[in-house]
């Protein structure tokens, strides 16, 4: 009971005494959390949209005639030769007709007079949904066109391709800003704590001489770090939330952004971001104290 009282008193003293650098640290943490969370939010929303577009991600190879099983095997080999793919489906004329009929659903009577083989047979190639394959989808399509008996190759519209490279870029940015977040928070906190320690060398020395326990000396700094991490990241998240809503209000009505539904992080994700920042800062301060005090 008294331990906590003493430790909290000490922590508050630390905060008051070095409030300028505390504020600076707080702002740095808030800013890095804001930057990271902003890109991460963009990324998750983009991914969400991307999943809806997944079906556009196949190449349809129209053939001039129904391939025999031997031919099918050969097509398969030749396709695999370009790149490994997730799946290859052969769609016969018959299959194509049935599928079309299914799509028409209630209007299927209009097909009644049509010959059952008026649609060309095709091969549906599902590339791996990796961003690497996406970058060469155009070349893939060109390659498929050179195979014998191929009439035409169709694949997702070009903007899908662009969109995926956008996601790819985003992912890099997320990773970079995440690294930045980790570096700045731990570094800034460790540095502020170091400054505090330096500024209070005499006091810490005295505390040791009068027999203060290791925890009595160290826990306040640990708390200080954790507090900075928590407050800083919470500020960052609040700023992002405000920014998010502002953007939504401002642009969502008119522009193409209206096509997509943007969502903010769910509560658990917010909690995790704050928790991780808190932990990072606590670790930063802990290691800095450890080094400095040689505990």
């Amino acid at each position, binding site marked *: 009971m*008294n*331990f906590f*009282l*003493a430790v909290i*008193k000490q922590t508050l003293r630390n905060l008051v005494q070095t409030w300028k650098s505390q504020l600076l640290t707080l702002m740095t943490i808030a800013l890095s959390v804001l930057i990271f969370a902003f890109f991460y939010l963009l990324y998750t929303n983009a991914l969400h949209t991307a999943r809806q577009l997944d079906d556009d991600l196949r190449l349809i190879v129209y053939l001039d005639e129904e391939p025999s099983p031997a031919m099918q095997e050969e097509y398969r080999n030749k396709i695999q030769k370009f790149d490994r793919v997730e799946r290859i489906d052969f769609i016969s004329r018959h299959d194509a007709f049935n599928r079309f009929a299914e799509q028409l659903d209630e209007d299927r009577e209009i097909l009644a007079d049509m010959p059952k083989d008026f649609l060309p047979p095709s091969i549906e190639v599902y590339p791996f949904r990796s961003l690497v394959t996406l970058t060469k989808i155009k070349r893939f399509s060109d390659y498929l066109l050179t195979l014998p008996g191929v009439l035409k190759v169709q694949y997702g519209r070009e903007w899908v391709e662009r969109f995926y490279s956008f996601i790819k870029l985003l992912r890099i940015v997320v990773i970079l800003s995440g690294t930045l977040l980790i570096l700045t928070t731990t570094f800034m906190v460790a540095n502020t704590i170091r400054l505090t320690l330096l500024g209070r060398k*005499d*006091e810490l*020395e*005295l*505390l*040791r*001489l*009068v*027999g*203060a*326990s*290791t925890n*009595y000396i160290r826990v306040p700094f640990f708390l200080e770090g954790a507090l900075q991490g928590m407050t800083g990241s919470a500020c960052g998240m609040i700023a992002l939330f405000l920014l998010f809503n502002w953007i939504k209000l401002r642009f969502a009505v008119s522009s193409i952004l209206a096509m997509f539904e943007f969502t903010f992080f769910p509560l658990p994700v917010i909690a995790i971001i704050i928790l991780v920042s808190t932990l990072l800062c606590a670790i930063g301060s802990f290691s800095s104290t450890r080094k400095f005090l040689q505990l």
Partner: protein
Amino acid sequence: MSEHQEEPKLMIDLVKVSKTYLPDIQALSDVSLSVRKGEIVFLTGKSGAGKSTLLRLLTRMEKPTKGVIEVSGHDLNLISTVKLQILRRSIGFAFQDFKLLPERTVAENIAIAMEVSYTRPSVMQTRIRKLLQRLGLVEKHNTPTSGLSRGEQQRVAIARALANNPELILADEPTGNLDSETTEMVMALFRQYNQQGATLVIATHDTSIYQGTSHRVIELREGRIVARGDEEPEAEAPAPDPALAFADDLFSDE
């Protein structure tokens, strides 16, 4: 204060202790010295004789180059960090250079010694008030120590050393900046703590404070003990002191 009944009767035991500062300043040479619990010992000698060094060794602010030091039954060469921390809480050290925090008030400075033992705030306030009263510093309660005279700072350092009701009190030149009247105030306070069971080691070159005393006076010269006051016949309580008459409530925390 002395709650360890079964522990040895010696508070301090030094066996052939030497301390050499780099590169080769021989501050103490082969010092052997025992101090019983409840004793008052004066440590004298010219400046540079090694008095402060000896006191610092007793709280392991420094380690001896050679020899064994036991304080309150703990071998300081072997003591664990945690045990040392606990031991230090039972030692009150009035440092020669005070080691006060200049931007903190008098009360805050005194409180530090008690805070590390998690003393209740109300108890701390009572003790601070009583000590300041006894040392003539009542009106300085909320003054930052940077705003005090040397003599006042010295008394604050002494108050901090006494605040935690230590078993062992180490005072390094405690009266160096005090006039004779204040010196007597401080000595009376020391005697009172001694009566309550505290052991005192007082390093001083102020002959007036140990002249005519019945307590042991040990003289250091160039790091060696050259004169031992008579071994105190018994560790009896000293003769009643008039200054104690009004101070009976000092230890009651109320």
